[in-house]
Each structure stands twice: as structure tokens, then as C-alpha cells.
């Protein structure tokens, strides 16, 4: 238990958003704040939000970059609806983000950047910091961040330009003071990053960081300070991890457990590129990566690797998924293991490349010609990417099938602390190659999984041919009508057989009641937070999250029967909802959101309350 510090208001959790120009280093201070809070420890979740342009002109609305961090003494499952505090480094940042700040929230503004020119670029006709309405609505702390930073460095040998670039650490230092965070982890970080290369730079950043912190100590600028107690975090070793990193890790872990090398082939696309960029540094794990000429080639390369006995993986986002669809069909037909990661973003078409959405679920299920079922797995938080990635590899190998793994832009870039698992808590993955001492039947099946056993090039005496034409159980091309019916049935039954290996659904709340909130993938945090809060208030509502979208978990049908109503919040127009209605004939209600942003807790809360009161 953290002792309550006198003079502080205690909060269960706080949401801070840093916002400034792309060049202002907001992502860096956000990351620092996170890393500091994580070691307190606090529960934490983050949400970086940067512009889609590489470098928009300085000071413009388009150039605003932000980083939101949510830290608490209790479970934190989302980066938070609205910020309790906003750090705004220039007028454009204020213009974009002020609307989100909670009434009464803390606004820390870099007053020195509120010049006439910057105000004009942000569309302000007068200085909002002088606006009495704003002063009344929020707790405004207007600081000459730039000036004070330069002042703090008056003895430093750095150039003026370099001095100006330290100002993000001033803002960070001050924010640390407000929330009584330790500054040592950041000092360590600065030293480890710059001390060797440029001791002056390191010293300057540390000085400015401290200046910001001490400004709080020594002046009367603020009326309130806040504290967030240590969270009761399960003991263990933790690391911070983003969704893209976690998926990369899970894939490699799965491959290792299966005793196969991993070959990842991708083509850069936002927000999926991070997976490739992570895996290129895993070469010493035997990971090979191929940056292909396009997404079609990428999946082709991955499938080739699988045919050759490795586990082939490819990753992309929506537009790339379209291009991979023909090859997914071939993997289905040849029954080869393969993992296809889709980090979903706003669509249709190029859409909103840097924004999040869950609108590719039906594509994952049906986005190919012919009867072509594939297992579909979804990560439900950044760190859950590990488990989802591992599971995708497991299912692909144990069921000799391509698997689609859905993530999204919000999970990909968001990060959270992750309790590092012990290797031996991870399940074995069993998918042996054919035994060369026995005759090889290409489409012979495992009695339970219905998987076909692979024989791989290099194995003596198992030479065989596969391809995308329909074939019979022996692998011979067959146009026989009954055989086609039977092979179609078997391909579907094999995917259905995955259901037997799925864990029971984890439920928040009771198994029966008035309302079940059913989610999948990245809405997990928002839904669970909402339902936990409502239950604490005495409402009869439960929730669960689907990591497995195809096949659906075997216990889902019974669960649905236990509730009067089912609400399905999704970042799409009701795709899971359609599946649930068709499959179980329950009048599930959709809560769609298509705004390129994750759900706010308040949005789900409102709808749940409506339905409970109906």
C-alpha cells in the first residue's frame, strides 16, 4: 500500500494526454511517463495518436501528435475515455485536443508557443489561454515552457536550436511533480540514451527535466496535486509491450514450441509494418524475413516456406488482405499451415490508414471465393497479441490450415505492461512430419483434428504433388461430384474441430442475467471496464470477449441462452452481431462505432443502461 501523501488528492486512476507538434517529442515523453508509472507499479494503458503525414508543416493542425497514458491503482484496461490532464505544447495541439479534456481537468499549456502566427495556424482569433470561459471550465496552468527551458540551460554549451528541443522534458518534469512520480527512471533513461554519445545533451535534458519538476516545488503555480496509489499488481517479471511486438513474440514462441523455424514475409503497410520491423531483429532465433514486392508475393513466400517445413507467416492490413485472398484459398485447398495477421485499420479502400477499426471480420471469414473456411483468432489487448500469435501458430500447425489473426491499429501501437510468462507454462505444439518408413497418403487425416500430415521436400521417398485443384483423399486430382462434396465437408469439419481445443469462455459477472455484453478483439478493455463498474454499482450485467471468432467457442450458445438481451459493441457496423444472429437466432443488438477510434467506456455504459432500463 502506498501511503497517502498529505496535500494530494487521491485518484483511483488518471488519464494524461501529451499533445504537441510532431517535432515536439510528445511520443518520447509519453513513453517516459508510461515507463515511470509502470515501475511504481501502476496498472497502465497507452494510446499514441500521430498524424498520417510523415512531417506536416510545423504548428499546423495536421501536424499535431499526441500520446495518452492511463495509469491507476486498480485494473486499467483502456487508455481512458477523456484525459484528466492535457499537456498542450502549442495552439494547434490545444485546438485539436481541448474538447476531450474533462470539465475541471488540468490544462498545462506552453504559453510561449501561443504566438500570433501559431494561433492563426491553429485557427484561433484570440489567445484561448486568456479566455475566461476556458479558465473557468478547466484548471489552467500556463507556463513559459520554452523560455524556462532555455533559461535553465543558460550555462550549457548546446546550440540554441538544441536547447529548444529539450522543452518536452520540462513539461514532463512538471507533470511528474503534479502526479508525484519519481524522476529517477527518466534520468536513467536519458543517461543510457545520450550520455555516451553526447554528455552535454544528456546533462541538458536532465537539467531541464529537473527544472520542470522543481518549478512545481518552488512556485505556487498549481493548487492541486494528485496521487495514484500503487496498484496491487501480481508479483512477477514485467515488460512493456505493444500489440505489434506481442504478436511478433507470440509467433516466434509458437514456432519454437513446435520446433519449426519461422519465416515471415511482408510488405510494409500501416499499421502492420511494426511486426516485420520487430521480427528483423529476431534473426538469431532462426527467424528469416523477406520484404516482398507486394502482399501477394509475401503470402506466396510464406506458403512456400510452410510447404518446405517451416512455419510461414505473413502480415498486413486491409488493402493487403484483399490481395492475399486468392493465396489463402490455395492454403485452404492444400491444407498447409500458414498464419496471416491482419492489423485492421479504417476502411473501405485506403480509408483511414492510421486509425483503428474492426471492420475486417467478415472479410476474414468470407473474403474468398468458394467454400473456404479458416480459423480466425483475435487479440484482445496489446499484450494479448502474444497469446493470440501463439494460438494462431498452434492452430495452423495442429490443424494443417491457414489461420487469420486479427489485430487492429489501436492494439498495434498501444502498449501495456505484460507479465512475462515462463516458457514451460506455454503448451506444446505437436505437428510431426510424415514418417518416411510408412507409405505416405497425402490427404490422410488425423482422426481427431482431421489435419493432414505434411511430408516435406528432402524427406526420402515421400515425393508428392499438391495444388489448388480439387483432389481425392489420396491427393489425386478429382472432378468426381461426391468427392468434391466430401472434401468440402472435411475442410469445414476440420475447422470446426478446432473448437474442441478452445478454453472455456472467461466471463465478467454471472452466467445468466438481464444483459450480456459480447465483444471480440480490442473492445475487450472498454467492455470489461464498463461492466465491472456497472456491476460494482449493482447492475445485473455480464460480459465476455471472444478471442476465437471461427470456430466460435462451443460454450457460447449456452451462455447466450442465459440472458434476456445480448449487446454486441463493435468498431464496425455489426459484423459479429450478424454471425451471432444467424448462428443462434438470438435477437442480438449491435452497438456499432465507426469513427476510427476505440470505444469510450461512457459510450458502452450509456447503451447498457438504456437496455437495462428498457
Amino acid at each position: 500500500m502506498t501511503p497517502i501523501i498529505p496535500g494530494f488528492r487521491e485518484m483511483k486512476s488518471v488519464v494524461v494526454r501529451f499533445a504537441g507538434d510532431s517535432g515536439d517529442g510528445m511520443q518520447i515523453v509519453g513513453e517516459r511517463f508510461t515507463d515511470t508509472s509502470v515501475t511504481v507499479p501502476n496498472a497502465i494503458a497507452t494510446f499514441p495518436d500521430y498524424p498520417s503525414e510523415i512531417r506536416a508543416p510545423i504548428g499546423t493542425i495536421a501536424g499535431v501528435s499526441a500520446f495518452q497514458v492511463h495509469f491507476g491503482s486498480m485494473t486499467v484496461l483502456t487508455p481512458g475515455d477523456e484525459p484528466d490532464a492535457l499537456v498542450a505544447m502549442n495552439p494547434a495541439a490545444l485546438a485539436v485536443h481541448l474538447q476531450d479534456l474533462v470539465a475541471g481537468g488540468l490544462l498545462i499549456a506552453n504559453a510561449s508557443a501561443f504566438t500570433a502566427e501559431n494561433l492563426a495556424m491553429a485557427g484561433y482569433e484570440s489567445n484561448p489561454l486568456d479566455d475566461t470561459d476556458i479558465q473557468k471550465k478547466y484548471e489552467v496552468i500556463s507556463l513559459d515552457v520554452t523560455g524556462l527551458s532555455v533559461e535553465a540551460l543558460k550555462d550549457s554549451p548546446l546550440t540554441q536550436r538544441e536547447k529548444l528541443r529539450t522543452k518536452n522534458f520540462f513539461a514532463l518534469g512538471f507533470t511528474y511533480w503534479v502526479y508525484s512520480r519519481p524522476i529517477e527512471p527518466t534520468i536513467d533513461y536519458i543517461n543510457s540514451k545520450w550520455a555516451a554519445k553526447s554528455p552535454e545533451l544528456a546533462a541538458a535534458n536532465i537539467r531541464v527535466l529537473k527544472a520542470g519538476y522543481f518549478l512545481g516545488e518552488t512556485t505556487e503555480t498549481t493548487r492541486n496535486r494528485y496521487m495514484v496509489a500503487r496498484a496491487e499488481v501480481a508479483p512477477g517479471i514485467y515488460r512493456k509491450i505493444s500489440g505489434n511486438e506481442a504478436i511478433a513474440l507470440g509467433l516466434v514462441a509458437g514456432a519454437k514450441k513446435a520446433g519449426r523455424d519461422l519465416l515471415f514475409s511482408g510488405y510494409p503497410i500501416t499499421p502492420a509494418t511494426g511486426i516485420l520491423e520487430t521480427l528483423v531483429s529476431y534473426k538469431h532465433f532462426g527467424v528469416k524475413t523477406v520484404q516482398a514486392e507486394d502482399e501477394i508475393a509475401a503470402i506466396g513466400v510464406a506458403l512456400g516456406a510452410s510447404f518446405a517445413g517451416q512455419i510461414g507467416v505473413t502480415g498486413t492490413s486491409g488493402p493487403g488482405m484483399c490481395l492475399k485472398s486468392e493465396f489463402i484459398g490455395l492454403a485452404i485447398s492444400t491444407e498447409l499451415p500458414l498464419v496471416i495477421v491482419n492489423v485492421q485499420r479504417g476502411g473501405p479502400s485506403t480509408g483511414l490508414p492510421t486509425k483503428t477499426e474492426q471492420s475486417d471480420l467478415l472479410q476474414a471469414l468470407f473474403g474468398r471465393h468458394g467454400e473456404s473456411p479458416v480459423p480466425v483468432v483475435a487479440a484482445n489487448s496489446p499484450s494479448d497479441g502474444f497469446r493470440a500469435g501463439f494460438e494462431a501458430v498452434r492452430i495452423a500447425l495442429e490443424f494443417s490450415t491457414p489461420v487469420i489473426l486479427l489485430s487492429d491499429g489501436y492494439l498495434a501501437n498501444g502498449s501495456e505492461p505484460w507479465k512475462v510468462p515462463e516458457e514451460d507454462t506455454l503448451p506444446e505444439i505437436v505437428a510431426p512430419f510424415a514418417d518416411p518408413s510408412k507409405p505416405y497418403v497425402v490427404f490422410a487425416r488425423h482422426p481427431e483434428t482431421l489435419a493432414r500430415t505434411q511430408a516435406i521436400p528432402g524427406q526420402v521417398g515421400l515425393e508428392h504433388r499438391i495444388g489448388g485443384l480439387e483432389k481425392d483423399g489420396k491427393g489425386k486430382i478429382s472432378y468426381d461430384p461426391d468427392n468434391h462434396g466430401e472434401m468440402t465437408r472435411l475442410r469445414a469439419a476440420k475447422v470446426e474441430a478446432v473448437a474442441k481445443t478452445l478454453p472455456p469462455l472467461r466471463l465478467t459477472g454471472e452466467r445468466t442475467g438481464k444483459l450480456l455484453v459480447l465483444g471480440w478483439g480490442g473492445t475487450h478493455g472498454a467492455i470489461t471496464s464498463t461492466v465491472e463498474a456497472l456491476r460494482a454499482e449493482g447492475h445485473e450485467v455480464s460480459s465476455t470477449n471472444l478471442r476465437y471468432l471461427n470456430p466460435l467457442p462451443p460454450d457460447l450458445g449456452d451462455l447466450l441462452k442465459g440472458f434476456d438481451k445480448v449487446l454486441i459493441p463493435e468498431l464496425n457496423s455489426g459484423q459479429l452481431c450478424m454471425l451471432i444472429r444467424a448462428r443462434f437466432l438470438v435477437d442480438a443488438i449491435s452497438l456499432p462505432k465507426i469513427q476510427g477510434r476505440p470505444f469510450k467506456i461512457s459510450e458502452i455504459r450509456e447503451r447498457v443502461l438504456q437496455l437495462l432500463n428498457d
Partner: protein
Amino acid sequence: MATEPPSVHPLPELSRKDFVTSNDVRWCPGCGDYAILNSLQRTFPELGVPRENFVIVSGIGCSSRFPYYMNTYGFHTIHGRATTVATGIKVANPDLSVWVVTGDGDGLSIGGNHMLHLLRRNLNVTVLLFNNRIYGLTKGQYSPTSPFGTRTKTTPTGSIDHPLHPLLFALGAEATFIARTVDNNPKHMVEIFKAAHEHQGVSFVEILQNCVIFNDGSWDPIYGKESRDDQLLILEAGKPLLFGKNKGKGIRLKGLVPEIVDATTAAPGEILIHEPHQSSPLYSQLLATMGLPDFPTPLGIIREIQRPTYESLIHDQVEEAKAKKGSGTWKELLHGTSTWTVEG
């Protein structure tokens, strides 16, 4: 990197029969593909590669049925994408001998881009492009190599696309081994297939192939009995460019323009000597552009140069990383570079 794995047992003696499958061959009677199949079945036993290390990858088309008729590992993929699957196979296991069989439509129409990038990357695989200048499997539409004005079902008044020239295309991609052979000369095919196999790097082999049904006789003006003496220029490394009855004609250069001369009266050294290994691509370009109506069509190895292979470079990077960092452990993987501990 060696193409063959270090074999502990002596290689079993292989013969043509070892590569014949029990599948009925389903090409049209008289199709040029039969002769190519035959030649490859005769080539494979002579390459010193164990049978289980051969993989034949194809796309879709009449030609792409090929893997079914070779008793090796085989993958009949999708239209135009064999090259990508072959890349995955070869990168995953560089010990395999990987052969891509493709058609003029499969490899140069829908699959042109993957072919381009396969060639420039210099993966150590062999591409056999069956060029019948027509889409066979879909019953006779014109292809990217069909001559201007070709009348087919989709071009009843004649095609209007300038055809793609497979060898110029391969040169544009800076392929390291480029050759041409013909379906009516088994000996030449075997020779070229062997050379392609031996080349450490990508080998691009155009095979002039006759489609008896939809484009019969398309190559006769070049390799037909009547024409071949005058129209085929058989390339032999280190030998002069001679052709015609009794090799009576030769090719010389005037500035950058080739000329045909009477070989019997030519000055010594005037006639070009075939040197496929030269690093300047101009000579290869010269050969590739030769053909009807003004010049004979060169047959053989147009170009053969050395460059590291893609799969060996990947392999090296992995090995280097392992040497530098040690083979990755579970702990390294799961813990990464920075963790913190929450005490119990």
C-alpha cells in the same frame, strides 16, 4: 552455398524412370510440352541431386500441369505466383533444387512482377518458361508474347499489343543466367537445363514451345525443318557466331549494329565470338534483339554472370546474428531488453 546437402550415403543411381509418375499425362497429343517433360526427366538423373531434393513449382496453365508428371516434390500453385512460392521454399531450405515451370501468360502476364523481382534478387532457382505465345488452358486467347496482329478468340481482328520479349525482359531485370532453347531439340534442351542447374543464381530459360491446338506452327518460321538452318544461331561459348548451311554465315559488329557476313570470306577476328560471361550487358542485349526478319534467332546461353544469391545472403545474415548474439534463448525472447520486477 552448395545446392546439394552434404550426403552421407552415396547417391543412389537414378534414371529417367525414377522421375516418371503414374499420372496420365493430359496434354493434347502432339503438344510440345511432352518433349520438354521428357528432356527434364532425362536431365534430372544426371544432376547428382537426390530425388527427394527436387521441387517443381508451377502456376496455372497447360504447362503448369508439369509437376504432376514428375516424380519429385511438386507444387501446382495459382496463376502467376509460382515464383513467389519458389522463393519461400528456397529461402526456407537452400539445399533444395527448385525449378519453376511457367507459361508465357503465367510468367509474363499475370506473373510478370514476381518474375521481375525473382530475377533481380538472384535466387538460385531455375525458371523454365514455356513460350507458346498463346493461352492454352483457357482455349486460345492471345498472350503477351503473341506477335502484333495475332488473331485469336479475343482478338478476332488482330492483337494490338506490342509483344513482350522474354529475353529483353530478363535483361531488364539483370538476371544472371539467360538462355533459350526449343521443344523440338531434346539434346539442346538437356544441355541448357544442365547449365541452368549448374549456375549458382537465378536461371531464366525460354523454351520455344508449340501448341498444336491453338497456335500450331507458330515457331516453324524459326525452327521448322525448312527454316532452321538459316534461322537458328546456335551459341557456343568461345566459338564464333556462325549459322546457315555449313555455318557459312557469321555475325559481325558495325559500331553498335550487327551485320551478317559471309563467313567463308570474312577477315580473321571479324566475326563475333560468343562470350556469355562478359559483365557488360551490351553483348547480351545484342543477342537478345536478334531474330526474325533480319537475323537468325540465337539459341543457347545468352548471358551468364555471377552474383551472390538471395537465399545465401539471408542465410548469412541469420548465421551472423547467431554468431554475434548467440542462438536466441527462451529467456531472451520473452524478457526482451527491459523488464521490471514486482515483488510478491
